[in-house]
């Protein structure tokens, strides 16, 4: 039996009917066409599918869509909603060479956002710990760590 739910994604409302076995990852990618969120492993080990739910980073591949009814979800498409200007995290990733193949990038950026929202001035060790659930096979992580540190400086502290 399908469940009628409403997803709040990047500030938009999506009333949809979902099969109970469908993951948030599938619904975002297939029903909502938000394909910035990737599917890398399906077992919570790679982090390519990371999204924020109420500000917390989770693996969308291990999240049932039906349990997301009414929850606030942020995907990579919601980082810079206007499309005119990149989010400081995105800017730093671009300029610092933190992106190669790009498949881990959306998940990395959201893990970085999850960290920086809680901890605006993280140490290198804290950054490494915060992105340790996101595998990257291209960069060796160093440039990503530098980019997150750089992004921390670019993000205006909340008043």
């Amino acid at each position: 039996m399908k469940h009628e739910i409403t997803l709040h994604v990047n500030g938009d409302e999506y009333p949809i009917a979902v099969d109970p076995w469908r993951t948030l990852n599938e619904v975002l990618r297939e029903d909502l066409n938000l394909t910035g969120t990737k599917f890398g492993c399906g077992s919570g080990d790679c982090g390519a599918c990371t999204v924020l739910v109420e500000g917390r980073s989770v693996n969308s591949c291990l999240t049932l869509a039906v349990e997301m009814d009414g929850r606030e979800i942020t995907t990579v498409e919601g980082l810079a909603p206007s499309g005119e200007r990149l989010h400081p995290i995105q800017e730093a990733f671009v300029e610092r060479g933190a992106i190669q193949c790009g498949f881990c990038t959306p998940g990395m950026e959201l893990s970085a956002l999850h960290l920086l929202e809680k901890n605006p001035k993280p140490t290198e060790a804290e950054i490494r710990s915060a992105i340790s659930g996101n595998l990257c096979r291209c960069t060796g992580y160093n440039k990503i760590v530098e980019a997150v540190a750089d992004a921390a400086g670019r993000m205006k502290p909340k008043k």
Partner: protein
Amino acid sequence: MEDRYSIIGKDVPRNDAVAKATGAAAYTDDMKLPGMLHGKLLRSPLPHARIRRIDTSRAERLPGVKCVITGEDTPKVKYGNWRLFPTTQDEYPLAVDKVRFIGDEVAAVAAVDVDTALEALELIRVEYEELPAVFDVDAALAKTAPALHEASPTNISIDRKISYGDVERGFSASDYVREDTFTVHAVSPGYMEPCSSLALCDLDGRITLWTSTQTPYIVQCLLASTLGMRENDIRVIKPFVGGGFGGKMELRPWEFCAAFMARRTGRPVKFTLTRQEELCYGRRRHPMKLWSKVGFKKDGTLVAKDLKILLDGGAYNAMGPTATFLCGNFGAMLYRYPNYRFLGEHVYTNKAPASAMRGFGAPQSLFAAETQMNMAAEELGIDPIELRIKNAMVTGDEIPGVATISSCGFIESLQEAAKMSGWKRKRKNFKAGRGIGVGCYSFISGGVFNWFNTQYPFSAAEVRAFADGTVHLLTMASDIGQGSDTVLKQILAEELGLGMEDIRITSADTAMTPQADLGTWGSRVTLMGGGAVQNAARKIKEELFGTVSARFDLNVIFEMECRNGRVYAKGKPERGMTFGEAVALAQKARRGEPLVARGYYTPRDKGLVTPAFSFGAQVAEVEVDRETGIVSVKKMWTAHDCGTVINPMAVEGQLEGSIHMGLGYALSEELQVENGRTMNNTFLDYKMFTAEDMPPGESVCIETYEPEGPMGAKEAGEGLASPTAPAVAEAVYHATGYRCKDLPITPEKILKGMKK
């Protein structure tokens, strides 16, 4: 020198970085077409068996299933990348008569959704007659071993011999000779994007295939032959690709099935692999058994080397023949070996096929060679770096009948790595549990051997110039994350004096970009693709120089230049015009015919291996917990010669990524295969380093000028997959007394092998 280049040597961000940062970049699995079906593969549960019968009728009757195929439905044409030698082509897209490894593709289903396709797989009945199977090279080479392929009764599918000098006399003349056997294990390329392919058949019956590949041209050609179609009736497009590392450079069964079933059903068909399929059945780096004998003079001068390698190839050749060639070549690289003999044999076993993976034979061969060098240094009483410097290759060296070293910064790399790391001091004064070690590498900048038997140049580029001051670069070269689109644009921008923003690039579309490009592998794109771009750019420049020269009535002795968006006489910059004006004028002179040039690169008269070698040295420092055997890597220092650095940020990224993969190879990654079954089917158990595990690093580029490369550039980042494992192994030995001769280095092996 300061302003020799405007854009070469600058940290230019990737041209696709914004698309990737915003999630807009579409990878194959992100794409959807109207009416699209979803494909799934049925794989063999047995390592070796004859297929008696396949019953697909129940699967076909399942509502939502649109097409089910087995090998019997296909044209039964074998394929393989070594097209020059058709006997090496040993694989069918779907098994015919026999399966040879757990995971061998037996049937395919296309259905309205993935759930239905999966359900249909469960309804296919296959009757197998199980055959005896072999799981390692020793078993495969035993007299009584079953043959995997009729054409190879001994299970040796290909061998490679190299010989120069006189090895036996060399050993007689040596003061110190040692023999060692090494084994290395299987690892996964571990690219983050699982393979995905989407095929569309148009009303004329032509195929368009979007696929996650490193080699669109190879896929196009082999798809044509296996489908029984003409090459030009197939268009292969490489969308954004999430890494390859060698694992995506062949035709794959799902590419064939997507195309075949799209033709059959008239609907687009997409296949996307799961991570489990990738790890259990996907291509991997060859496990090998290496026997090496090496002879030195008392003073450390290398005299002779005899190397025998057995490659555990798995069930099919894949890129094994190339790996067999390269491990022989790299057995005698880095140092001057006056006498060398190599025998490499590629052996079939009933396991998932091994193939290309970053380094392509070199990481295995160099692990043995560099470890043996470290062992010899100890016994000869010579510092390992000193011993290397004493024997190091230099520019101009010749490997008899194989290659000439046209540029080489190896000695400088060794010296720099020693200096940066504080080698001498640390080597002497380390406390128990701490150690430092060195490993080195050399690698190719693309291969010269035409095993694919391409009828086109190795690389090609087309440049279209426009009166608005922009150009359009078209090339079949494939950016799979390494950044070749950016690097090729930089080369073009430099040649034409334009900015990155003035260049539009279309790449890796076999119907739109000029024939051809062999793809992304063997670190060939910067040198070969870059060479083609430079060649095309120079033709455009010649035309513009003529036009501007005529317009200003310049003396024929004037040198001309394209720079800062202008075309002008070098000595008299005021005699010139903007690039766009020059194009407009040239076009006018051609009575409207657009200004287009094509450039090509094919290595000729460059020996047997490559036009250019990179070199480098790496030092690793480790701390070993002597009670648990856990190794923590404290720091890595790398000095490498990659010729002219076109984009330092990209080169650093390649280097750091190589260290990540190299450390995994040395310490944590291993595909554990039991009776032909790969046991670690998730990233939880296939352990790639996380951000927390990665040590800090320092690196320096030793700039040389490679005469064969564009602006003097050559390979960067693939060869670096090799030095890390021997460097870490030596550091662990220095720290504990445990000498690793069988990768990976595990805590368990350390505890067992540690000297108290």
